[in-house]
Each structure stands twice: as structure tokens, then as C-alpha cells.
């Protein structure tokens, strides 16, 4: 059904191999930046959905995404401030942002039920991809225990959102 895989998801899948190719794992400042960016991307997608979605469950889901990711990103900012870590922009974050904005533009062209389905399908896939990156790359690479712990809670949050998105998708069929 989804011929086109989101570019942002492709970037996340590349995250592991790109870092391995350089022979270096991401540093804590980079990990913090990537995790924060992943949240910002989902907030932007959700804000578009709040504007465009027709289905009330889809709209409510989008509102949940804004609320949760804003809360967690605030928590992340508080933590990096406390740890005196400055999030550091990096190629993964840049690729994620660029490709997410392309996805937003692509979704912007859709309307009605077609948009609702595409948004929710992308949410399922996007959360799944972020879960993969958190599990295999970001969490194992994190050095600071508090950062690692926040990422682990973040993983459970993204897994919860993925299940919630799957539930919304199932309700639309």
C-alpha cells in the first residue's frame, strides 16, 4: 500500500551504517540533537495534521503528538542544561530535517481522507524507524546515564505512539 517510504525514515535507517562507516559512534551532544530533532519533526507533522485532518481520531492523535513531544523535548532541554551539554548539530540531524520537510510538502498536497491515511501511515512508519534508531544506535551509544535513561523512556513513548497510530489506522479502514 505504501510504495513510497518516507525519506526521513530512510535517513534513520542509514543512521547506523553511516556512523559505522566513519568508525565512530555519535557523541552525547549529537545524540541529544538527533533525539530532539526527531521530536521536532513529529510536532511539525502533527501541527499540519491539526490543520488538515478531517477524521476526528486523526486530529486527536495529532494533538496528543504535539502535547507529548513538546513535553518530552522540554524535559530533554532541561536535562542537557543540567548536564551542561550543548546539543550539537550533525549530518544525521540535518538529513532528518531536510527529508522531513520534503515529506511535509508532499503531505501538504493531499486532501481529505487521502491526507488522513497518508499522515497516519507515515506516523506508524516514522515512529517505527525512530524506535529502531533508538534501540540499535542512540541508546547503546549514549555515555551519560541520565541521557541514556531519558532515551529509554523516549523509546517506550515512541513505541506507545506507534501502537496508538496503528490503532487509529485500523479504525479508519
Amino acid at each position, binding site marked *: 500500500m505504501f510504495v513510497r517510504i518516507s525519506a526521513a525514515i530512510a535517513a534513520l535507517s542509514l543512521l547506523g551504517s553511516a556512523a559505522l562507516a566513519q568508525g565512530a559512534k555519535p557523541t552525547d551532544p549529537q545524540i541529544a540533537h538527533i533525539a530532539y530533532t526527531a521530536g521536532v519533526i513529529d510536532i511539525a507533522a502533527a501541527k499540519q495534521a491539526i490543520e488538515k485532518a478531517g477524521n476526528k481520531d486523526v486530529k486527536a492523535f495529532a494533538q*496528543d503528538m504535539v*502535547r*507529548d513531544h513538546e*513535553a*518530552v523535548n*522540554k*524535559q530533554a532541554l532541561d536535562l542537557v542544561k543540567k548536564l551542561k551539554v550543548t546539543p550539537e548539530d550533525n549530518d544525521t540531524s540535518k538529513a532528518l530535517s531536510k527529508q522531513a520537510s520534503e515529506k511535509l510538502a508532499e503531505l501538504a498536497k493531499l486532501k481529505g481522507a487521502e491526507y488522513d491515511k497518508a499522515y497516519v501511515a507515515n506516523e506508524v512508519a516514522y515512529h517505527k524507524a525512530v524506535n529502531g534508531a533508538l534501540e540499535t544506535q542512540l541508546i547503546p551509544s549514549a555515555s551519560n546515564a541520565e541521557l541514556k*535513561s531519558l532515551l*529509554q*523512556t523516549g523509546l*517506550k*513513548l515512541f*513505541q*506507545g*505512539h506507534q*501502537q*496508538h497510530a496503528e*490503532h487509529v489506522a485500523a479504525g479508519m479502514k
Partner: protein
Amino acid sequence: MCSGRYLPLTAASVMAALLSGAIAVPAHAATIQITIENMEFAPAEASAKVGDTIEWINRDVLVHTATARNGDFDVTTPAKRTVTSVLQEAGAVEYYCRYHPNMKAVLTIAP
């Protein structure tokens, strides 16, 4: 609520009962704390009785719900807040968070 059963009481014994709290609170009612932290209900399995109060203590920065699969209760717990609810129905109730369906736990409620 059960004052009808104590009609023959004298004023003095009513006063004594009120002072000791014997009339206001059924002897068996308890308050049970269930904590929500880092996307988990703890304890994941708890036991209670009908009439008991559950104190849902949400330590996360996220809004959660404790939603019974059988529809017996649906409590919303705002971020960093504690909400109480009184158990009305007996049963072994599976509950979850509607916003994060991977959060699951069981509450066994005796009659």
C-alpha cells in the same frame, strides 16, 4: 449513608460514633497507590476491594489514562498530578493507557 441501621442510637452514642469516625468510613475501605512513572504502571499487578480508593500518582511529564478494557473505569491523570478514583465493580480488570497502549497493568478487585 447507612444511618438507617442505627435508628435506636442515643444522642450520646451518635456523638461518640461521629468522633471516632465509625459512621463516616466503612471499616474495610482502603487507599491504594498506583504510580505511573517512565511509561509504566507500578505495581503492574495490584489487588483491591470494591469501595477502595485508588490514588493514581503520575510522575511523568506526560498525560496518561488508566482505562479498563471492560469499561469499568477510565481515569485521566494529568502530567505530574495525582488523581483518585473509587472502585465500583469487582473483577480482574486489565487496564491500559489510551495515549500509550503499550502501558498495561492488572487490578484485581474483590467484591
